[in-house]
């Protein structure tokens, strides 16, 4: 029985090898591999509050994009729009080359039917700030649910695969525990395993460490590092962990008022920001 390794200090040290750099992929769709995400003119308003304004965004297959920005800047909303948790008011979203909210009829795009949305959405999954595990199921049942019910895998196969995934996040020993018996960090690791069980081509991480006690953040980031190193999925992360962003991200997007105001390599955006607002934001984050 393998006990979970002590995650160690929160701050990812420089000793940790960076993720594999070979992520550039010419093809839009590799067979069940990472998929691209393309947003065009995406607008989303809640009442009179316009959160996303005519947003264009391209994420290449296998790319790891970290989105930073002040609260209320719309960074979480992007992920929620891609996950279909919020419908955009205007614009298009393509995942792996397929339109998410539209269907092609000859030359024109029409609003997609629910079936089509589900079909395309099967490539995407999301990990939440508050885990959102199913509290009435054990860890392994949480992980098995989608494979059994959505991908129609036999239970035994799903269980074996689920145990593998729990092993991967260091929680094989907790397979039969319910979320109520797990710590925050453990819950989030189960939630990540549950998302991985969907065999996603795009994974969205919405402030996955923000609800955790500081000493539990490291264990979750370690799991994220492993996923990033594998490079088999596109990752979009909203996070306030700047050290982690620097280490893992191929690209950092600075968001403010529904726009990307600055984008580039982590070293560029985080260390030599060109925008005053980025500087102000980073100053506020690093202050404490």
């Amino acid at each position, binding site marked *: 029985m393998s006990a979970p390794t002590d995650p160690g200090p929160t701050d990812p040290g420089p000793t940790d090898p960076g993720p594999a750099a070979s992520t550039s992929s010419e093809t839009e769709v590799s067979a069940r591999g990472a998929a691209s995400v393309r947003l065009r003119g995406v607008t989303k308003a809640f009442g009179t509050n316009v959160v996303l304004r005519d947003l264009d965004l391209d994420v290449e297959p296998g790319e790891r994009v970290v989105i930073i920005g002040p609260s209320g800047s719309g960074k979480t909303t992007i992920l929620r729009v891609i*996950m279909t948790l919020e419908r955009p008011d205007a614009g298009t979203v393509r995942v792996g080359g397929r339109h998410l909210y539209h269907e092609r009829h000859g030359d024109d795009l029409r609003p997609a039917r629910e079936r089509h949305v589900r079909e395309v*959405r099967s490539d995407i999954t999301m990990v939440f700030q508050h885990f959102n595990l*199913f509290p009435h199921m054990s860890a392994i049942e949480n992980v098995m649910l989608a494979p059994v019910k959505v991908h129609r895998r036999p239970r035994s196969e799903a269980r074996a695969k689920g145990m593998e995934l729990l092993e991967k996040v260091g929680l094989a020993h907790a397979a039969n525990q319910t979320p109520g018996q797990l710590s925050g960090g453990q819950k989030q690791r189960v939630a990540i395993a549950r*998302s991985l069980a969907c065999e996603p081509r795009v994974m969205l991480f919405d402030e996955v460490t923000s609800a955790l006690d500081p000493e539990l953040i490291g264990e979750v980031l370690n799991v994220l590092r492993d996923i990033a190193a594998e490079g088999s999925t596109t990752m979009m992360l909203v996070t306030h962990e700047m050290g982690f962003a620097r280490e893992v991200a191929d690209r950092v997007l600075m968001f403010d008022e529904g726009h990307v105001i600055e984008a580039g390599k982590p070293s560029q955006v985080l260390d030599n920001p060109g925008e005053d607002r980025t500087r102000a934001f980073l100053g506020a984050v690093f202050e404490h």
Partner: protein
Amino acid sequence: MSAPWPRGAVDGDHLSYRPHRRWFRRPDVVVPLLVIVAVYAYLLLGVEETSFFRTRMTAKGTEHFDWMYFWHLVPLMWRGLLVTAKATVMGFTIAATLGFVLALGRRSRLRILSWPTAAAIEFVRSTPLLVQLFFAQALVRSTDALSLEPISILMVGLGVHYATYCSEAYRAGIDSVPKGQWEAATALNLGPATTWSRVIVPQAVPNVLPALGNFLVAGFKDAPLGFILGVPGVLFFANTVRGEDFRPTEPYILAGIGFLMLSLPAAWALRRLERRIAYERTD
């Protein structure tokens, strides 16, 4: 919630905890339970399949309360009580099922579905069951195609009436499931059937059970209204005996005791079920 039975025995100053034993292994639970079950069984065995609530003895007219006469009435009362209980259980089965359908209808995004459902629920909920039963009876009598026994009318009447209450309870239960659970279901791309059956309903049920239990007991107390339809229930028994023997005290007291004898175990069983189904709530 405090445990109804002491879990440990006081041993001098020192409270010694015994490991939790299942209830059927604990004499302090099992012995009283067996006694109660034996009493109920004895009473049930005494029930005769008579065609009418006819007494075979007369009470002593000099006394206000005649014990012999009282005991003599017990089997008759049980016959009526069983009819009332049957109507309640069947009616409640209808209510629990129909209520869920109504709750789904009311929550539907389609206004063409949700508005009429809401109107129907409000209408049935705000009119008295007594009036509804009279109406149902008149309806059945006026149409030849529909010939229902009085007890069936009572079941359907109770069922529809309590379905509207149940639907509101279901709705509250469903709404009490955190939004994040729906979002997680979307993130895993679960279909609507799986989302409902595996995620939402299992979490809504523990929230709904107390309310449903209350409706079951309330429905049981409303079931004697079947008297006006001619259902030979427990109130019918008491009224018949009073009419035949001119003795009101014994049959009515007995009817009340009869209600208690079913309500109390039902409430107790429900409490146990609730506790068993409750799970530790997280995030």
